[in-house]
């Protein structure tokens, strides 16, 4: 199996799905000749031509709106938002139309499309290039939100997203893009949207993370286990919406302790939702309060100080130990 990074893995998924299905279309700003500002779509323009890999005008609502039209008429658009910070301009189309056509028409009209966007911080970027707004997208019923954490699940989840019957917001942790490589099989591989993955089993405590936080969380878990001999269960959420409550509940029943690691600000976020679901389903199994390790409720700082705000390995280790000791 070739070892590739997340950029290459996403590219592989796009290339294979486009080769397989002529209705799959890639569109966005600079995705064609340039291959995307992160080179995620590199080579697709040469291979599939400009009718299928479209350099669009610079207009995010426009990209989303035409993608909806394409999806309504038989194509499978995979639209790119160049950065998640620019993606809010397409929210009116996502909320107002993509998320609603199915219910608006009682299932007669559907919008199977994917909107990909790099998100998250710690890449020394300018303003609007570092946010983590998965919770915003997850609040729209009818929209699926998926966040891979590494090359292999990125490839498998993107294939699933392209084949999914619903609009899928596919958020790519850009900090992970080239951070590490994994074995990714050339043969087809998909993962079910709506399922979390238990990446490591353990009985003493559950840690839940997603996106760029998963890699760093894994390192923190290894460190704490080494230090204290605890057995820690690690859940990689992968699907923000719909969320896999059962996997979380089953784990808490076993461990009774939970730490959630979230790159986004604390309030009104995915960690709040997970905590609420634990409360609904397995409250009486808890032996300690659910600990949330998150960014703070501030406007994302410029990169000069952002690393002090985003959860780092030490904060995660400390949170795990405090919860183990509670």
């Amino acid at each position: 199996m070739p070892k590739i990074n997340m950029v290459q893995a996403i590219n592989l998924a796009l290339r294979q799905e486009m080769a397989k299905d002529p209705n799959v279309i890639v569109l966005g700003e600079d995705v064609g000749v340039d291959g995307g500002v992160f080179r995620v779509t590199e080579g697709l323009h040469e291979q599939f031509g400009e009718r299928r890999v479209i350099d669009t005008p610079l207009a995010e609502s426009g990209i989303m709106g035409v993608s909806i039209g394409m999806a309504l008429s038989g194509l499978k658009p995979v639209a790119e938002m160049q950065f998640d910070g620019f993606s809010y301009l397409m929210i009116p189309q996502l909320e107002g139309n993509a998320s609603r056509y199915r219910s608006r028409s009682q299932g007669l009209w559907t919008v199977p499309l994917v909107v990909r966007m790099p998100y998250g911080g710690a890449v020394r970027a300018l303003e609007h290039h570092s946010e983590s707004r998965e919770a915003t997208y997850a609040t729209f019923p009818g929209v699926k939100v998926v966040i891979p954490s590494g090359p292999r699940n990125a490839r498998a989840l993107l294939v699933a997203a392209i084949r999914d019957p619903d609009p899928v917001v596919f958020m790519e942790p850009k900090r992970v893009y080239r951070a590490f490589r994994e074995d990714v099989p050339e043969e087809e591989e998909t993962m079910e949207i709506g399922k979390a993955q238990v990446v490591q089993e353990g009985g003493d405590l559950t840690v839940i993370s997603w996106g760029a936080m998963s890699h760093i969380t894994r390192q923190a878990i290894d460190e704490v286990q080494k230090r204290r001999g605890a057995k820690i269960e690690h859940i990689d959420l992968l699907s923000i919406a719909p969320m896999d409550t059962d996997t979380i509940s089953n784990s808490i029943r076993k461990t009774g302790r939970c730490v959630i690691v979230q790159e986004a600000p604390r309030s009104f976020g995915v960690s709040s939702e997970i905590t609420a679901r634990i409360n609904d389903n397995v409250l009486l199994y808890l032996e300690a309060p659910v600990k949330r390790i998150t960014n703070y409720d501030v406007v994302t700082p410029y990169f000069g100080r952002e690393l002090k705000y985003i959860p780092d390995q030490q904060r995660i280790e400390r949170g795990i130990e405090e919860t183990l000791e509670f």
Partner: protein
Amino acid sequence: MPLTMAGEFSTSYLQILDESGEVDRELEPKLSDAELLRFYRAMYLSREADQRMLKMQRQGRIGTFGPGTGQEAAFCGPTFALTDKDWLLGSFREPGARFMRGEPLSTALLYYNGYEEGNALSPDKRTLPIAVIVASQTLHAVGIAYSMQYQGQKDSAALVFLGDGASSQGDFHEALNFAAVWQAPVVFVVQNNQWAISVPRSKQTHSRTIAQKAIAYDMPGIQVDGNDALAMYQATKEALARAHSGGGPTLIEAVTYRLMMHTTADDPKKYRTEKEEKDWWSKEPLVRFEKYLRDKGVLDDKAKATIEAETRQYIDEEIKKFETRTTFKPDASFDYVFGTTHAEIEKQRAEFLATLNQGGADA
């Protein structure tokens, strides 16, 4: 260096049937008697349905709706030019257009009584549900047009209606731009009915015409007498021919007037004069079209009476059909969140149904 000409532009205005019903013989479209009658019936049904629905709304038998009265030529004319292979996207003030595409009145009434069951024709009709967010549908039309181009469906174009208010939205301008860049087979029809709820056209845009906005995107644009059914049909037919033959998009501005309220929840007396309304009543589309048909010998008193009676009967039957349907699956909303099944949704559905059974919510 002296300035040189970078470009010179103009915008044309089309009228075929004037306010008094006189036709320009040179421009008159060649439609058969049967076609003309079908056209007239569609406009007449739209007007009659509006009036009946207004009564029903006042009686609490349906919810709020936006009447199309006065704009029948502006939305029926373009629709009459479409074939079944073309797509129709609209906003919410094209009732007659939707009827022409095969929507039964009973279905429309379901929509206006708060049920999604009334908002969709089967996809083979190529007519999208009503778009409430104004101008958002213009981009969908461009995406559909791109699909048609991509799939080699040369006889298919997308026609999209919007209003003068919607022409201020960014999505409209993004749609014009995408359509022009892609030379997509799409026809934009702006129903300039002079009022976006209470805001007059003069406060909506400083442009002298809405049609001239096409110039910025280098696409054909034309201003048409929107109360002239023949002109609306003809302008659209030409735009569609261009779209079908690879000539790209067109912008049509229909100059018309919303003779009634924005929706039944609105009172126009607050912002416009009765004199203005009266002036526009004298230019309304049905009277003028009827005179044309009579002059041409296509319509007489007897034929008119038949159309009236048949339309009334159809409306009566459709209302009955609508009111006979009284049961709706209460948990249907859970069926259409996603195309896949998810535990949390199913759990909440069960909770919802249990609550209903306890009498906790009004079923």
